[in-house]
């Protein structure tokens, strides 16, 4: 009668093997190509050279990773807070939702290339414009996920809550909010992959420090190896954040793991 809770850790590792293999072989092919063709490192540096540069310039890279991380976290924290707060307001006031939603959609159609210089112009070279841009980019997927998630609540569960005499607030807390969690995590995963990129782009447009500045300077002095070193770091940051959300999701949505094996 009872279904056992599946053990997932081992399975996860095994499933990760093909991904690791394909990434490693891509780097190997790249390395071989660079060595065999004798292409100039000013055009295409080999992975080994990029790695070498990362080690040599570790202080510079680290000093510039910190501001990027700060902007990413601050921006993300801001958009998370606003998305949560707003989603609750919108859920309790459908009229406001209908009035405001088009504005949020429009906010997503603004091209980052055009909006970033303006935001830097208005808010200067400090942290503020980066935080705002990260927030702008990551906010919408989470808001939409939450609003859709609330709406996905099983109507029978809502009827049940009402029959128990639950207030609107009780129904929200016990039924609508938990129903939205799987949606929220889907949105969170999309958002988090945009976050680092948005921070770097904002720096690229105008900043004193950050990975975006490293990339800009390296490009101007024809150092593709350093550009790529910064790219590697930004990818690693995104991967770490992505893994962190996956871990959080695993914890919060433990009930779904038992269901997944039906």
């Amino acid at each position, binding site marked *: *009668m009872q279904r056992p809770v599946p053990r997932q850790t081992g399975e996860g590792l095994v499933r990760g093997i093909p991904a690791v293999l394909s990434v490693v072989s891509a780097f190997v092919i790249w390395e071989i190509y660079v060595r065999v063709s004798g292409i100039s490192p000013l055009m295409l540096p080999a992975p080994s050279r990029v790695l070498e540069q990362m080690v040599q310039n570790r202080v510079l890279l680290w000093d510039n990773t910190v501001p990027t991380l700060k902007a990413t976290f601050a921006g993300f924290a801001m958009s998370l807070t606003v998305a949560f707060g707003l989603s609750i307001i919108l859920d309790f006031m459908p009229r406001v939702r209908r009035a405001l939603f088009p504005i949020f959609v429009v906010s997503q159609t603004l091209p980052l290339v055009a909006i970033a210089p303006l935001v830097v112009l208005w808010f200067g070279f400090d942290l503020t414009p980066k935080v705002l841009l990260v927030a702008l980019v990551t906010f919408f997927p989470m808001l939409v996920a939450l609003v859709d998630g609330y709406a996905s609540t099983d109507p029978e569960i809502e009827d049940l809550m009402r029959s128990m005499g639950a207030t609107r607030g009780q129904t929200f807390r016990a039924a609508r909010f938990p129903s939205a969690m799987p949606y929220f995590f889907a949105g969170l995963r999309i958002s988090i992959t945009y976050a680092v990129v948005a921070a770097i782009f904002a720096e690229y447009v105008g900043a004193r420090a950050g990975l975006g500045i490293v990339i800009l300077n390296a490009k101007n002095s024809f150092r593709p190896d350093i550009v790529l070193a910064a790219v590697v770091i930004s990818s690693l940051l995104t991967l770490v954040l992505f893994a962190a959300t996956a871990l959080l999701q695993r914890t919060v949505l433990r009930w779904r793991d038992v269901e997944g094996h039906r």
Partner: protein
Amino acid sequence: MTALSLNDVSVTFGDIPVLDRINLHVEQGEFVSILGPSGAGKSTIFRLLTGTLPLQTGTISCAGRENSFAFMPQRDALMPWRRIIDNLTLGLEVQGIPRKDARAQVGPLLGEFGLADFTTHYPAQLSGGMRQRAALLRTIVQGRSIQLLDEPFGALDALTRTQMQTWFEDRWRAARWTTLLVTHDVREAVALSDRIYVLSRRPARVIAEINVPIPRPRLGRPPSAQAYEIEAYLLETLLQQTGETS
């Protein structure tokens, strides 16, 4: 004493009449079933009672407090993210009873409902019959005076359903909850009820009201001749309904 009565209750959705002057009543401690074809409007009656749907015309009166219904929805509506124990205490939590007290209240009933070893499981880990028992216990523990059960055994396979009905009859004989049951299973209605209302196709009218004076327990033994007779009559009445396509 009359626990609940509906007088000339009608409901229309847009232009579609769904309930047409429904009159029914339930006495204290009585088991009453509403039997009707699919889509007749049976669940609609429950939605009126639980306040999900505002009353349009007619009156509903019930003895005692305002909110006197405990409702078991058609599908079990267990919250997949709550462990069984937390699903069971949901109604009590909504009433403002602290979680610890709510659990203490549910505890003594777990064995009877065959859930004692499954309190920390999630609903998805339970079989259909167990989920149904959990949904039933969640209804009962609310301590309301009238139980509204919307096809509680409808989603089960035939064997499990028979087991559950027999088990439920025992529980009911011990506790005598005032119960209003919705079903489209003739045998189930006859096996469990004191009285049966038969609804017509949509728009639903009450087309028959039948007493079932058969001694209990009725399940777990061969059905009596009287039960067969009532079943045959009900089936006939319902089949006429489905044949009567407008």
